[in-house]
């Protein structure tokens, strides 16, 4: 139905602009812009959706020109915007933090922590800051080659294992 799509679209769009600025640290008066655009507004049930994403201080350009990390942060903003409108009871995020610098991992984990109040998040990661944000850690390893084994681990175990493996 047109109305349901429109309402969902507007709600996601609202979140998108706000979350984008949180993730890109857009401060008051110095914000970035992020918006979803209906390519064919006259035909909402068929229209494709385009994305405008302009980091704070930069000029609007095609999103293809954004950096690897900026694209990832924009995608994270969009995914969580949809999530806010229609929360899943759980989500599995496999190495979302891979292209992010330390400051961006920090912002990403902040959002994760807030959202994890009402949903379960399972995150696969190599990143220490993401590990610190987790309440529970499972370590996967292959003491017998080719056979996975899972153990509950502490953050300190991870350091030890990483050092040994290094």
């Amino acid at each position, binding site marked *: 139905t047109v109305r*349901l*799509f429109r*309402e*969902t*679209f507007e709600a*996601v769009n609202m979140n998108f602009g706000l979350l984008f600025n949180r993730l890109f640290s857009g401060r008051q008066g110095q914000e970035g812009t992020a918006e*979803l655009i209906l390519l064919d507004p006259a035909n909402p049930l068929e*229209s*494709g*959706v*385009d*994305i405008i994403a302009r980091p704070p201080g930069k000029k609007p350009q095609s*999103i293809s020109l954004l950096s*690897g990390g900026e*694209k*990832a942060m*924009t*995608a*994270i903003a*969009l*995914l969580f915007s*949809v*999530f806010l409108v*229609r929360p*899943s*009871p*759980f*989500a*599995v995020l*496999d*190495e979302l933090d*891979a292209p992010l610098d330390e400051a961006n991992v920090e912002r990403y984990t902040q959002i*994760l922590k807030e959202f*994890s109040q009402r*949903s*379960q*998040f*399972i*995150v*696969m*990661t190599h990143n220490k800051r993401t*590990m610190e*944000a*987790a*309440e*529970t*850690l*499972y*370590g*996967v*390893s*292959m003491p*017998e*080659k*080719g*056979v*996975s084994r*899972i153990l509950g681990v502490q953050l300190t175990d*991870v350091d030890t294992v990483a050092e040994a*493996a290094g």
Partner: protein
Amino acid sequence: MVLKRIEIFGFKSFPDKTVVEFPSGITGIVGPNGSGKSNISDAIRWVLGEQSAKSLRGEKMEDVIFAGTAKRPPLGFAEVNLTFENTRRIFPLEFSEVSIGRRLYRSGESSYLLNKQECRLRDIQDLLMDSGIGKRTHAIIEQGKVEEIITAKPEQRRLLIEEAA
């Protein structure tokens, strides 16, 4: 908390029955390259009904059955069971726990299980659709795929909004 635990047996790199409990909040899965982290994510997608072998990094669905190692022989089937908390009746069933299972034999024979009872794939799909877990592509993000929403065609991005509507 909705997800309680997953049991993986014979799926990809998990020949030995493995049980992972899912607490509330954020659960981190860590370990070296190739140790099996993404395989857990694949197991979750598979038991929830994923039909495309390619999207599970295989060429045919049989590829998800433990293929053996230099020291161990292959197994004859893969099975995954995912148990949900149901005290708040997210599923319209009279159980406090609901367990969805899937098994695949090398012959191609496969079965779906609801609280260990055989059922059809359709029953699982309907159950998930009603519960709000459904076919929610944005709830399980595969490794390396996060940028795809940015580089996707306008029609594909539309699907993301439609699913939320």
